[in-house]
Every structure is written in structure tokens, then in C-alpha cells.
């Protein structure tokens, strides 16, 4: 080994990144060459100096980062859409769905309408302050929120240097009420369809699911589990439907979720809910899922359910 190649290897030697044979050769060279040995020593000194520059983030900074992150996760940044787009379902899903499911569009229309009605209700109630509304809506706190729509130089005829700013203003109101209040429920049904805010949908579904004995709320949950673009919301809705997993309509929707949902976590929850109520009619369906499901974990859950039902996992 010559000095030039030794110089090149010294940093890697120092970081323990040389293969054993190169390390041996270099060490032999360093034993014999004072100049390269000095170079290695310089490298070590620089490394020690660099070590002293290392900083350890404070515990307070780490705690703040954790707090901010989890707040964003829970409140604002629920998982974004990983929903299957139309046509993205595997072809086998399309083959299974017609046998098991009515069109899910049937859930969309009435719920879309109920959301509009609820919004209409909210608008009517909330734009007439002090008009003798129900007691549960008595606490209304107005607040105006502005956002800048456009900024441009002012029109001809105005003073030089003037600008025109167009603001969009939204009036915010705070509504307090009990969850079993029908009016509050209607507002929340509407909120559960707010397509721009998955966090609001998630929280609305989470609160409403404990009232799934109410027919409109159960319809909402069926709609959300099948249609919500956010897997977190779908899981919450599914959670609220568990106690009704023996109901034929609920089972049809859950079977559709198992076949069509692109999130394995949601599919697993659907399997669990369906198999919690053993039903021999499901054997063929579950066997098909085992054959065609691409997620190992979901497949295993279905296979386990079949075994628990004393059914064969495969089809013959």
C-alpha cells in the first residue's frame, strides 16, 4: 500500500468501514509510515472536535414536538385519502359485490339529502339570533373569520399606491347542546359529511356512534363506513355498527367493505365484525375472499373465521 491510497483509506478506517484485509494493510502501512500515522492522528483529533459540536435536543423540545404532532394527527391531519378510486377495485371485487350487495348508492341519496336538510335547519336556526330557538341552541357566540381572496392594484381613478383587497368573511357561531338533542344530532349528521374536514367527520362519527340505536345515525354509520374517504372515519363508523353486525342490511354493507375497501385495517375490522355473528351463508363468501385477498393478515383472519365455523378454507 502506498501513501496516496493510505490517505484515502484513513477516514474509512477511522469509521470502521474498511473490509478486514484492507484494514490490516492500512495498519501495517501506518506502523511503517510516520507521515500517514500523523495523518491518522489528525483525523482522530478532528473527529474528537466534531464530537464536541454534537447537540442533544432538550427534553422540553422533544415534548413540544410530540405534543404538536399528536395534536395534528388527532385533530387536523387525520390520514388523507387512500380510498380506492372508481375502477381501482380489484376485478374480483366487482364479481363478488353484485352477489352480496345492493347498490351502495341507495345509502348515498337519502343521506346526502338528510345532510342538506340538516344544513338547512342549521342555517335557519342560526341566522335568526334570539328568535326563540330551542333551549339547547341557546348558547351562540358569533365570531367573524376573514380570509383574503385577492389582492390587486386599485382601479383607475384611485390614488396612486392604493390596493384593493377582497376578503371572504365567515361568521362563526358556537352551539352547545346535549348529544341526545335531535337538533344537535342533525347538526352533527351534517358535520359527519363535511368533505373538507376529516377531523370533524371523525369526531362527529365518534360521538354519534354511541347512539347507533337511532335509525338516522345507523344510516349515517352505514354510509360513512362505505363511502368516507378517510380510513379513520370508516373505522369509527364500523366500530359503531358492531352491535348491529347481525342485522342483514348491516352485514351486506360490511361484506362490501371487506371486498372493496382499500385499507387492510378497515377490511380486518369488517371481518371481525362479520364473524362475530357466525352465519353459514357467509362460508362461500369468506372462501372467495381467502382466495382473492392480497393482504396476508386479512386472509388469515378470514381463514381463521372459516375454521371456527368448521368450514374448509379452500373451495372445491
Amino acid at each position, binding site marked *: 500500500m502506498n501513501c496516496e491510497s493510505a490517505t484515502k483509506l484513513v*477516514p*474509512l478506517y477511522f469509521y470502521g*468501514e474498511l473490509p478486514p484485509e484492507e484494514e490490516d494493510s492500512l495498519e501495517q502501512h501506518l506502523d511503517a509510515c510516520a507521515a500517514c500515522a500523523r495523518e491518522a492522528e489528525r483525523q482522530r483529533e478532528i473527529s474528537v*472536535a466534531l464530537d464536541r459540536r*454534537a447537540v442533544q*435536543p432538550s427534553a422540553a423540545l422533544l415534548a413540544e414536538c*410530540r405534543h404538536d404532532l399528536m395534536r395534528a394527527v388527532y385533530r387536523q*391531519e387525520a390520514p388523507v385519502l387512500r380510498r380506492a378510486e372508481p375502477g381501482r377495485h380489484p376485478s374480483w371485487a366487482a364479481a363478488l359485490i353484485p352477489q352480496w350487495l345492493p347498490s351502495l348508492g341507495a345509502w348515498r341519496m337519502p343521506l346526502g339529502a338528510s345532510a342538506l336538510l340538516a344544513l338547512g335547519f342549521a342555517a335557519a336556526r342560526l341566522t335568526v339570533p334570539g328568535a326563540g330557538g330551542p333551549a339547547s341552541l341557546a348558547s351562540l357566540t358569533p365570531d367573524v373569520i376573514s380570509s383574503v381572496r385577492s389582492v390587486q392594484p386599485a382601479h383607475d381613478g384611485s390614488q396612486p399606491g392604493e390596493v384593493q383587497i377582497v376578503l371572504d368573511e365567515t361568521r362563526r357561531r358556537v352551539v352547545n347542546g346535549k348529544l341526545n338533542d335531535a337538533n344537535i344530532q342533525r347538526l352533527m349528521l351534517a358535520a359527519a359529511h363535511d368533505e373538507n374536514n376529516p377531523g370533524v367527520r371523525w369526531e362527529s362519527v365518534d360521538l354519534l356512534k354511541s347512539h347507533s340505536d337511532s335509525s338516522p345515525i345507523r344510516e349515517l354509520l352505514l354510509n360513512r363506513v362505505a363511502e368516507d374517504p378517510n380510513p379513520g372515519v370508516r373505522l369509527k363508523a364500523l366500530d359503531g355498527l358492531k352491535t348491529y353486525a347481525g342485522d342483514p342490511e348491516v352485514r351486506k354493507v360490511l361484506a362490501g367493505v371487506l371486498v372493496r375497501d382499500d*385499507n387492510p385495517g378497515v377490511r380486518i375490522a369488517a371481518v371481525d365484525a362479520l364473524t362475530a355473528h357466525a352465519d353459514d351463508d357467509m362460508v362461500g363468501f369468506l372462501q372467495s375472499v381467502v382466495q382473492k385477498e392480497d393482504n396476508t393478515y386479512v386472509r388469515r383472519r378470514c381463514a381463521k373465521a372459516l375454521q371456527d365455523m368448521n368450514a374448509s378454507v379452500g373451495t372445491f
Partner: protein
Amino acid sequence: MAQDAAGAVGARLTPRLDEAGLIRAVQRGDQDAFEQLVRAYDQSVLRLAVNLLRSQEDARDVFQEAFLRVYRSIDSFRFDCSFHTWLYRIVTNICLDYLRKRKVRKEEPAVVDTPEGPLDRMNDFEEEAAHADPERNMWNRQLGQRIEGALGGLTPRERMVFELRHYQGLRLRNIGEILGTSEEAAKNCLFRATQKMRAVLGDLQ
């Protein structure tokens, strides 16, 4: 020198927590599992961001952006590589973006000149050095300034490889995997970085 960060993190997860199980739970939408997963790695991620960017504000932003990206895209994690590698790909990409933007804007050096002398903006952090020795503090400040100058002369990629090897203790093979390049390319990058550092800090006393 820093210990192997991946090993340290792995040790923190076992035997109580099974990482693959946690990841699958997050993929099923379990936010508590996500929090546990974050806690297994967040210290090393924050340390990387703080050391690389020398700014608490930027490090906070990187931390949040990186873990939110993990949260949003964990469905696409297929266990083709270790979670550590996957996470660090995300973190290093974000940090490289920050470094490149800074390179273009040439903004916010960690050590700034003030009428009272050079001031290291990182002095707010907990340092390993002794606190009450004025001579040592002065030496540290001067040394810090020179080291920052030397690190500032590296390209963002050289800076990243150097940070991951020297401070985070990752192996070059793992660094190559994280940065989407070969071990050989990472090795060359580290060599260039050390040569540049050597040129600037060669006369260090």
C-alpha cells in the same frame, strides 16, 4: 463517536413491543400504536434534524412533517426494508430540501457575528461541554465557528452522509439504502466530506 442509532432504537422497542405488530396496528388505523411507534424513533429523528439544521424551529417543522408523512403513507409500507430505513428516507429527504433551500438563500448560519463576538444560536441546547468554565466556553465558541464553517462548505448530500455516519452512527451500507444510492457512492461522499473538513480544520490545536 455516536453509537449505532438503528441498534439503539431497535433495543428500545424490544422485547416488550413488536415493531411489525405496531406498524400493522397503525396500518389498521390505530393511533395509539402510531404514538408508540413515534416514541421509538422520535428522539433520533429530532437529534438528526437539530444537528443538521442547527435551528430549533426548522427541526420542529421537520419532525412534524416527517411523522405526518409516515402517518399518511404507512399503508404503502410493505416491509420491503426496515421501518428505520423507510422512516429515515422520509426524514433525510425533508432535511435535504431544507439544506438545499438554505444553500440557495445562504441564510441563517448557526454561528453569527454580533458586537459582543461570535454567537452560536445553538447555545440554547444542552451541551455536553462543561458549563462553568469561561476559557473552555471561549474555546468552544471559536471551535464551533470553525466547525460550522467547515460543515457549511459541504454539499447538502455530503453534509447528510457525514451527519448520518459521524453523529448518527449509521453504517455506510444503511446510509446508501436510506439515500437511494450505493454503499460505494456513500463511501465516496463521506471521503469527499472528510477531505473538505480536513482542509478547513487541519490546523486544529
